[in-house]
């Protein structure tokens, strides 16, 4: 086995240009954790690795009132979990980041890594989906902003393909009286991948929910929005019966599978319950604001 060739990109432009030069033969690595797992399992590895870790200008958390939040793809998960800014205004994202892996993993894992690995269970995805996030993608032809919902294409697959790089995530500023919650079902109290993940974001009106967004993780080929479940609640006054309906709808919109972490049936049960609970917690947070 010939070990892969390792190249280092020192800027976004260099990264993109190297990737287009090597095409299918190359892969980006930031924390390199996924690549290392491939190597350790004896799976085929790319001929060429392009290290992104030296690109300093992809590691940032920025905010302004109009533009909202921008987080660079190489920002570590621990920085997101601990950022006073994100914990203040976009707490659902900090909450999810704090639940990702173990403390040491959070020191190393990056937002870009979590999203580009595109596991259906990726913890940062459901919160970003309900926050209405967009992805800034850079290729040879230049930059492009796409809604995060369009970013995931299948399990482990994104629209980046073999010639583009995820540079940053953009999140619009939050509205007044809004709040969110991310609930993650695990197999133990310690670290785990999500068996089921549910994120909910609400904007409270005086009597009704002005807006609601629900996103589900680990229950479909990609993280998804539960739009039917949202529709049941949007513009309505929330009561237990409505929550129940919404939960059932979310369970129906998902397409969970039986796998080693849980059965499809169990996941549907959980979706119904966790959707209700996530909305309830989101409302509590919104009412506190």
């Amino acid at each position, binding site marked *: 086995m010939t070990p*892969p060739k390792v190249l280092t990109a020192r800027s976004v432009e260099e990264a993109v240009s190297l990737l287009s030069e090597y095409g299918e033969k190359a892969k980006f690595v930031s924390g390199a954790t996924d*690549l290392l797992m491939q190597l350790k399992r004896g799976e085929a590895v790319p001929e060429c690795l392009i290290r992104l*870790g030296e690109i300093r200008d992809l590691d940032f958390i920025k905010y302004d009132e109009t533009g909202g939040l921008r987080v660079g793809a190489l920002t570590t998960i621990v920085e997101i979990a601990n950022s006073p800014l994100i914990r203040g205004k976009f707490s659902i994202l900090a909450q999810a980041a704090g639940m990702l892996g*173990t403390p*040491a993993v959070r*020191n190393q894992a990056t937002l870009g890594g979590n999203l580009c690995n595109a596991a259906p269970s990726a913890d940062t995805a459901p919160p970003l989906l309900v926050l209405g996030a967009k992805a800034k993608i850079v290729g040879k032809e230049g930059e492009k902003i796409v809604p995060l919902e369009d970013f995931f294409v299948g399990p482990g697959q994104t629209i980046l393909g073999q010639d583009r790089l995820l540079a940053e995530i953009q999140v619009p500023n939050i509205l007044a009286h809004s709040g969110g919650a991310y609930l993650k079902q695990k197999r133990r109290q310690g670290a785990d991948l999500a068996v089921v993940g549910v994120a909910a974001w609400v904007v409270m009106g005086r009597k009704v929910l002005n807006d609601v967004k629900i996103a589900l993780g680990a229950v479909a080929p990609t993280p998804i929005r539960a739009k039917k479940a949202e529709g049941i609640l949007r513009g309505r006054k929330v009561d237990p019966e409505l929550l129940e309906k919404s939960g059932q709808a979310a369970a129906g919109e998902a397409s969970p599978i039986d796998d080693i972490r849980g059965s499809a049936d169990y996941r549907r049960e959980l979706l119904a319950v966790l959707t209700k609970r996530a909305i309830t917690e989101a409302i509590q947070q919104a009412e506190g604001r």
Partner: protein
Amino acid sequence: MSEIVLKINGAQVEVKAATTATLAEVLREELGLTGTKMMCNEGECGACTVLINGEPILSCMTLAIDAQNKDILTIEGLADPVTGRLHPIQKAFVERSGMQCGVCTPGMILTAKAFLDENPDPTEEDVRHALSGNLCRCGNYRRITECVLDAAEKMKTGEKDEK
């Protein structure tokens, strides 16, 4: 293979390593620093934890080439290099028998050090969460928590490291 330069326990070390060698492999196999233990080799147990620029990092999930130009602290570097005096955390683990088989111990101690350096006055819950990524198959969680809280006291009172 490539020539890499790592800064380990304060010293610059040159070593030849495969481009995809992990830091754990380089430490253990090339440099004979076997204090960093391998328990799962898949980033799930925390035994291989070293401190990189003061942060706990899993050395089995880090490419050695990515560890260059950073300060790496392994367990071998924790006691005073001149006097051999143990760090207060090591001392607490010795005094209170914070280990059984000892494989998780280096990772536990280093993770605790990084944590206590930032959080000198932790609650028990804080300690449990900080170490939650370090597995102890010998089930010593209660004892280890006790050792780390004791170490926090020692470090607060500025107790001198003693052998």
